[in-house]
């Protein structure tokens, strides 16, 4: 079984990291649609893929958060990326396989992945 001692060690490590992080500026928000339409279309695995990829690549100042239905159910799972000072980018029909590219190109390097956007899907 996973031990409580392990969890205590994790807590102590996290405390140090939080102290560093809290001094930093407001970060980027990755917003995943988690209403019925999003969940039915696969938002749970997309959200978990974002969290895992962000942790794996140690991308700092990014928060993965949820929203409800934004009225474009046919494009779910929908993921919006809101970076400070940048225009909102809305990705549609996102799959877990697309997440690594979005994290690398967009969150790390600042280049939105045009082919995955809702704007591109509507063309």
């Amino acid at each position, binding site marked *: *079984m*996973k031990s*409580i001692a*392990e*969890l*205590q060690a*994790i*807590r102590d*490590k*996290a*405390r140090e*990291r*939080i102290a560093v992080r809290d001094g930093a500026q407001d970060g980027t928000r990755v917003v995943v649609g*988690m*209403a*019925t*339409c999003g*969940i*039915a279309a696969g938002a*749970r*695995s997309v*959200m*978990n893929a974002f*969290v895992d990829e962000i*942790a794996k690549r140690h991308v700092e100042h990014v928060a*993965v*958060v*949820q929203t*409800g*239905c934004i*009225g474009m159910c046919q494009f779910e799972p929908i993921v919006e990326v809101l970076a400070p000072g940048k225009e909102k980018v809305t990705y549609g029909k996102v799959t877990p396989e697309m997440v690594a590219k979005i994290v690398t190109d967009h969150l790390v390097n600042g280049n939105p992945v045009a082919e995955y956007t809702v704007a591109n899907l509507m063309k």
Partner: protein
Amino acid sequence: MLELSLNVLDIAQNSVVAGATVVELTVTEETARNRLTLTIRDNGCGMTPEQLARVRDPFFTTRTTRKVGMGIPLFRVAAEAANGSLDIESEQGVGTTVTALFELRHIDRMPLGDMVGTVTTLIRLNPELDIVYRHTVDGEEFAFDTASLRPILGEVSLAESEVMEWITANLAEGVTALNSQA
């Protein structure tokens, strides 16, 4: 919905909107009775008798942004397809309990799917919420409660990635042990 665990996630999200501080998810598998029971119980704001009477109607929702609410109807269809039923009890100021019954071995029963994924997703999205998960297979129970972790974690959030890894591993171990006994 491809898995019942996604219906559970969807219904539990309603509890979050209802302002619940505790959500209890229960999975009970009974081979001898050929029954699967899923419950989602919260201590949120609850519903008025009028709301409760209409909640199975897909064209009823408390949202003001649009006119449909599919969560409960989809869960009900999944239960009824497996010769089961959906029941909702709710009281204002007390909370809501949604109970879905299924024939365990019905050919049209959707698979339970990734309950660990549902629980961890709920924790990630709502780290302030306390989540109780109880999974019973023929009397053998695995129980998990985020409230028991908080005194150990102190001010450290459940959503911290290493904490989430620990929780995911803990849940996976517990659920795997249940399934290997069955």
